[in-house]
């Protein structure tokens, strides 16, 4: 049964179909929101909220685009709202994020390297306006057209934001090269990957 069929069943109130959708998307959405927010527990909470909206707003879903784009749109909107709220409240230190990553998350590989920490820091410094398209492109692997559909912006705007976001990320990382993690990043620069 494909996602469209599952969604049709969810629209009729089928909880088993909904559970199947949760099972299919939980890791992708949690990871996406984690990359956006930088906090694992927050990412899990937002993921739960995303799935609640998938269920309760199921009647709003129209099978014109990919189902995953719709789910990512919900998740991205929730993350944006959350990031705006957080910007007004407190700033979490990088050490806390790293501790959180080590203690509470279920990582597939070992991200606790100096490079990962610098990347995390650089991403956190990036405005959500640029962070979202960059993550959708470089972490989730979506095309620019799909990203335009998810964030509801023209493709030209998406291209510009990705380009500008990458440029800013590069600048932040260049600054970090002078720090303790310099060698790892310098190697990446040598390889022409940044």
């Amino acid at each position, binding site marked *: 049964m494909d996602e469209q069929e599952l969604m049709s069943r969810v629209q009729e109130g089928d909880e088993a179909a909904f559970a199947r959708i949760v099972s299919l998307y*939980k890791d992708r959405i*949690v*990871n996406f929101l984690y990359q956006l927010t930088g906090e694992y527990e927050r990412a899990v909470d937002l993921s739960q909220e995303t799935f*609640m909206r998938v269920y309760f707003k199921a009647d709003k879903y129209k099978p014109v685009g990919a189902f995953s784009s719709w789910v990512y749109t919900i998740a991205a909107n929730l993350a944006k709202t959350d990031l705006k709220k957080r910007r007004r409240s407190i700033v979490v230190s990088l050490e806390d994020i790293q501790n959180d990553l080590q203690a509470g*998350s279920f990582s597939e590989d070992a991200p606790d390297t100096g490079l990962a920490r610098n990347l995390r820091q650089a991403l956190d410094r990036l405005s959500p306006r640029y962070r979202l398209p960059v993550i959708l492109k470089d972490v989730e692997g979506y095309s620019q057209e799909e990203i335009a559909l998810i964030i509801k912006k023209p493709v030209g705007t998406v291209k510009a934001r990705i380009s500008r976001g990458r440029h800013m990320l590069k600048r932040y990382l260049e600054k970090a090269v002078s720090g303790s993690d310099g060698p790892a990043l310098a190697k990446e620069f040598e390889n022409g*990957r940044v």
Partner: protein
Amino acid sequence: MEEFNLLEKLGKVKAPPDFERRVMDRLAHLKRTKAPAALFGLRLSLAGALTALVIGFLLVNIFVLQKPGTLADQSQESGLDRSAGNSGLKAEVIRVMEPLNYSQEFRGLASDRGAIYILENVSDKTYQEIRY
């Protein structure tokens, strides 16, 4: 040109093992709380609609239906006093009921041959209340 792929080094995370259970629990909880809330909302909107209807009815009654008209309007409505129709004065119409007994009027004049009586049959009764 090689793609920007440094972000792949961020490392991926997975959902916690009990994620699905938590989602389903939350769904069940929301379903329980959302249904009464929706019912409450429906009741509230119905009550609001009824209140608006009553207020609307009262406003129409006060400002439209019982609007004090001019003397001309009221004369036209009652079909009386058309000559005063253009005065435009605001006044209340006082309905006067005056009892008349025509039998007394005609008795003394019956012998006069030159008199012409134009009689209008108002009622079979001789004693009639006439409304001006």
